[in-house]
């Protein structure tokens, strides 16, 4: 089945197997920043932006992406020009193993688009569905606040 998507700003046509989840498809096509931590919608590691909304790729069937704009961490910034969130995560020490990081970044990005200057509580609420076992979340929340400040 052909699926027409705009991924990280580029139009693409994806071939999905019947019933394939968006997570499996996206990873298969090489967007491996989208992580698989549970395939059950519980960890948030597979978070992507679909038309700007943070969603769990493992809970979407690939066909649901038809006509949508998808953003993954690969599309957030580049090595030379990282997104302010990526820079802030590194500066604040919010990246330990980094496995949760792409999902955290996208959930944060969705928040900052809606609420450019959130407070800590708003950040905590926005990231509630994204699990991290390494950091204790403190530096992640700080990183999002730092990015918001720098982007203001």
């Amino acid at each position, binding site marked *: 089945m052909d699926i027409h998507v705009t991924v990280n700003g580029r139009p693409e046509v994806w071939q999905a197997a019947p019933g394939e989840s968006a997570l499996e498809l996206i*990873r298969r096509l090489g967007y*491996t*920043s*989208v*992580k*698989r*931590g*549970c*395939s*059950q*919608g*519980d*960890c948030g*590691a597979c978070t992507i932006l679909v038309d700007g909304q943070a969603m769990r790729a493992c809970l979407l069937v690939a066909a649901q992406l038809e006509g949508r704009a998808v953003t*993954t*961490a*690969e599309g*957030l*910034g*580049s*090595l030379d020009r*990282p997104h302010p969130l*990526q*820079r802030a*995560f*590194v*500066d604040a*020490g919010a*990246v*330990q*193993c*980094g*496995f*949760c*990081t*792409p999902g955290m*970044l996208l959930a944060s990005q969705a928040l900052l688009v809606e609420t450019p200057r959130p407070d800590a509580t708003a*950040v*905590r*609420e926005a*990231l*509630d*569905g*994204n*699990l*991290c*076992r*390494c*950091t*204790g*979340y*403190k*530096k*992640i*929340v700080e990183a999002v606040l730092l990015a918001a400040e720098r982007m203001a």
Partner: protein
Amino acid sequence: MSPKREFEVVGKPVAKLDGLALARGGKLFVADLLPRGCLVGRILTSPYAHARIASIDASAAEALPGVHAVLHHGNVPRVMRTTAGQGAPEPSPYDFTTFDRKVRFVGDRVAAVAAESEAIAEEALKRIKVEYEVLPAVLDVRHAMDKGAPVIHDEPDCKVVIPVPYEPGRNLAAHVDTRVGDTAEGYAEADVVLEHEYECQYAQHTPIEPHAALAEPLPDGRLRITTSTQVPFHVRRIVAQALGWPVSRLHVVKPRVGGGFGAKQEVLIEDVAAFLATRAGRPVYLELSRSEEFLSRTRHPMVVRLKTGARKDGSLTAVDLGVLSNTGAYGSHALTVACNCGSKVLPLYRWPRLGFQADAVYTNLPVGGAYRGYGATQAYIAMEIQMDELAQALGLDPLEFRLRNHIRKGETSPIFAALGEGGEGVEQSIDSIGLDACIRQGARAIGWKKKRGKPGAGPLKRGVGMCCLMQGSSIPKVDMGGASLKMNEDGGFNLLVGATDLGTGSDTVLAQIAAEVLGVSVEQIVVRSSDTDLTPFDVGAYASSTTYLSGQAVRKAALDVAGQIREVAAELLDARPAEIALAGGQVRTADGRALPLSRVAMRSLYEHDQRQIAAFASHITHKSPPPFSAHFAEVEVDTETGLVRVVKYVAAVDCGTAINPQLSEGQTEGAVLNGISYALCEEYLFDEKGRMRNDSLREYKIFSTRDMPELVTILVPTYEKTGPYGAKSVSEIGINGPIPAISNAIFDAVGVRLRRAPFTPERVLAALDELAGRQAR
């Protein structure tokens, strides 16, 4: 006095070297590195807690198009060994083989397949016909050693490979008994003697990346295993053992690891991936599902009996610590985790007489393993709640009571010599300790004096509690770390280390140490870690060893390289080598002449008396200096619902010199939040057949951002002279505090002692009801 020193790179919050690549979502984890034509591996697991495999028929699975290999006990050689990734000979019993004729817990391995897709692999598993002869199971640790209990390891070839007690016929996987002096005399001298039982539960590390391994047959007949592991060199050794190959035929690579916390100090799936790939002649990728991850390795649940005696003046007279550890179906880390209950806990206070006794027993439940804290977590629950109870019984402030009794600089504990990794330990005295400062600064940060004993009027009660902790830094005389360093044309360096960065940031810490010696910035150091073909040996990331142990190997190699640089620079600058300093990316003489390091590199590589400036070094230690810590919890207990909320949590830690304070804080915060989550909500629920009922992240809840309290980390610097630039360990200690600190805070709030974790609303309410009942009587 600890030497006061200023460093250029050490002690600075240098950004993690791999941070940006990770934040960009680079292809850095095993699952991102799959080659074309890679097969998918899946494992068939046991539905029964205890059964013999009467027959297994894999023909229908083998006949399925797209299936390339099916493995089971009938076609894989039986080699008894352990999955525990420890040094050789391992202290864990050899009670495991790749596939056995018996299954010993729900989730135990039965067979495995490699197929062209996950769907085909799943279908193949369904087509494997297994007949089980179901056996009675041991599901209660307290009855595991009863006369007539089912014997879990009745196979004649299970054994231990070091001389330690092992009685599988009684389900006894490990036993330890140590005493110093006559504790009965101590209790006779005491004014207060307390004895209670404490209990803690199963828990899983839940790294967000589950276990994952890729095995690829190479054109030269070797096999490369790319795996998410903490112990690449042990993986090589143990997989070679399983395959019956020399280690040189295996190449083990550790890419970035998505968290481990001990779960990946286990050679758990690499053997299966290796067998599948060699049979199929194709690359095979094997990843555990989240539910399988819960049944991989766990924290050993324990029942801890603790008896202590103290005099009215607050001095201690005796202690007896008794541990019953549930190692589950296999004895992975059974002995050493049990030993740690004593060796990392009893030295904290000056007990004149002490007894320590531990049994690790088999049950038909999930398998214990290494988990951050490694036994210390379990035993500190008992020790630090009971220290609070003792203080209460003596009418002393628990904080003053601990200040009075903790071990001091220059002192030793008989336990250090008596108890090591299964056998005797190594004598050591304490050279660096900042515990007083941890206690005082932590108390100030939580508001101890102001908040203690003021629960408030309404149904929401507040309380504060504290505890003290220590851990170790590597396993003395056992662990070895190696490093090699070479200089390149631009005055930069390649640092090759066997040490294993599993997200902790150890690559960065080790680069900082090298950079400090060489007078360069960390950007000048390219780190390659954990590749068994390229890097020197290292035991891997466990026992809080990397910074302290591998860091010292890096420092030695860097000092050697610095000496070689001075020699070449001396020729260039017409000075004596000893007069030359390395700083700011330059070599400098005292009279102010300087050249860039690249000049030295070019001369050594291309111009004169050419040679590669490089060095190898390795390091072992003769002591395991403990980091110390004091934790403080402020809780709110809802007396109507029983819900406990941690409002604020302060962890003050003495880890010597924090080579990278930001990473040290990160280690502490991660460990503390994991500990709080364990204290309040994480536990395994089983049905009556021994099957885990809550094997998903929805049902097995771990803390998320919404649950986090205000976390405060205080780094208290000391200088450990045996560590690199004064460093000790930091990664494990933080997880030991939350259960006792929170229990003690709950007592301060509502007057009930919770001795069994987790502190769920039901348990809290039950304890409150019981208290009300007692008060009514």
